[in-house]
């Protein structure tokens, strides 16, 4: 059966409104396929099970343990009452400063982190109104006093910044080996710790890109600055590829680009792995623009256009092969 028909059936069973054409498909399926009943049963079962709680034995066990441990410890307290009192006093003396310190630091710092497989790309609005979009496997940390005199933010990984202009309070992104100073602009900082380079791509305005050993370059709109970790060298590329920030814009453009170059772009934009069989011709050219489409859709287009078979072999792994 065609995928389109599965979509219609799923919509019908989910209670979505269908148009006449779609309803005709349903009627046809009902009369012509004896597994219609089975599909309905399955879908109802799926809905019921999805709504059921998943009883977590480990959690329940921990809860039970807690109750029992509580009982035993109160009994012990009554046996040697005085000793326990002193122990408790000492414990309080030890614990209070730690808690206080923890309270202070947690009050002062705000941290956001995304996991390596987190492709949700959360957008955080800072207290000054600037926006940060966080790519997978990344962390930003900033002080609660962020807005007072300077706007400083620590980054590990990759983030896209949309900074509100404020000449009084420069905006500063600090990474492990370089920093970026700006007044008001949008730009992307790619500073994954293991990577060869730290890259800054500017989509509007001007930024100052400074390494830890104080080399400084100015980057204008449309430029990309590259800092090579090993040599501490900095360089300006006069054009940055819009596809570099596709992970945040979800806009990808290929202009007679060969398959070999397309794949790294897609891998970066969608945080996936693409494997390719040896006999596939990587010089095949593709011209296409994608806007907001997911990886499945893009691979459908590539498969049809270049006459290739593309299979999703794991959640985030795709395999490209020739049609046999």
């Amino acid at each position: 059966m065609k995928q389109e028909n599965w979509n219609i059936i799923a919509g019908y069973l989910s209670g979505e409104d269908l148009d006449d054409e779609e309803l005709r498909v349903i009627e046809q399926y009902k009369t012509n396929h004896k597994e219609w009943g089975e599909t309905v049963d399955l879908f109802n079962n799926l809905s019921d099970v999805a709504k059921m709680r998943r009883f977590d034995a480990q959690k329940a066990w921990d809860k039970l343990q807690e109750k029992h441990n509580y009982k035993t410890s109160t009994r012990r307290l009554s046996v040697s009452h005085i000793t326990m009192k002193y122990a408790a006093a000492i414990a309080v003396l030890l614990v209070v400063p730690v808690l206080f310190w923890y309270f202070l630091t947690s009050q002062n710092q705000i941290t956001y982190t995304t996991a390596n497989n987190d492709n949700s790309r959360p957008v955080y609005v800072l207290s000054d109104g600037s926006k940060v979009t966080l790519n997978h496997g990344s962390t930003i940390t900033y002080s609660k006093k962020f807005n007072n005199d300077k706007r400083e933010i620590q980054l590990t990984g990759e983030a896209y910044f949309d900074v509100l202009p404020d000449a009084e309070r420069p905006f500063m992104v600090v990474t492990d080996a370089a920093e970026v100073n700006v007044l008001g602009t949008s730009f992307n900082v790619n500073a994954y710790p293991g990577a060869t380079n730290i890259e800054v791509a500017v989509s509007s305005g001007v930024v100052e890109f400074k390494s830890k050993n104080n080399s400084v370059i100015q980057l204008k709109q449309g430029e990309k600055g590259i800092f090579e970790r090993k040599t501490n060298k900095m360089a300006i590329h006069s054009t940055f590829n819009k596809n570099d920030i596709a992970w945040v814009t979800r806009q990808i453009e290929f202009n007679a680009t060969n398959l070999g170059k397309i794949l790294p772009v897609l891998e970066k934009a969608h945080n996936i792995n693409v494997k390719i069989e040896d006999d596939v011709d990587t010089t095949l050219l593709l011209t296409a623009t994608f806007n907001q489409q997911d990886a499945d859709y893009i691979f459908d287009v590539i498969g049809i256009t270049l006459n290739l078979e593309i299979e999703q072999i794991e959640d985030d792994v795709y395999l490209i092969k020739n049609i046999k």
Partner: protein
Amino acid sequence: MDKNEQLFSQFLKGNRKSFEILFKRFYAQLCYYAYKYVNDFDEAEDIVQGFFAKMWDSKSSVNINTSVKNYFFRSVRNLCLNQIKHYKVVDQHRKESLRDMVTSENDNVIYDYALVNRINQCIDELPPKRREIFVLSREYDLKYREIAERLNISVKTVETQMGLALKELRVKLGDIKKMIIGLILILKS
């Protein structure tokens, strides 16, 4: 795998590890079983946890003359029935589930539990985004439009992902009927 009976007699001698194994082996099954009576997830968990806690506390006086599995299920059932009796107003649904369940056999519950597990497993195996969409639709009963807004994707994408999910689950769970028959045969043998 250790035999239930063996673990149970070790537990009666105060072996906490054996008790833990039995607890984890039966917890979810008993919760599903209890849920069928009380029709409330929290209450089901409370009853099953209460049963195990009480059993641990009174292990010196526990004496069973049937299989451990039977003893667990029968005890939880009695606790559920007591619980239901406590309600001053028994609503229609509870009355119905009571009538249906009083005569039911433990074995039915086991395959229900296996079935629930199997379905959950297949849902979990969907690609993450597809799974998220599917769960929002089926668990939270959101309309496609609401899902699209929440995830910032097009309604068309939701449609496609739901279609793909249905197709995938249909293939994976196509042998559900076979599975039930297989399980009953195993249990009866």
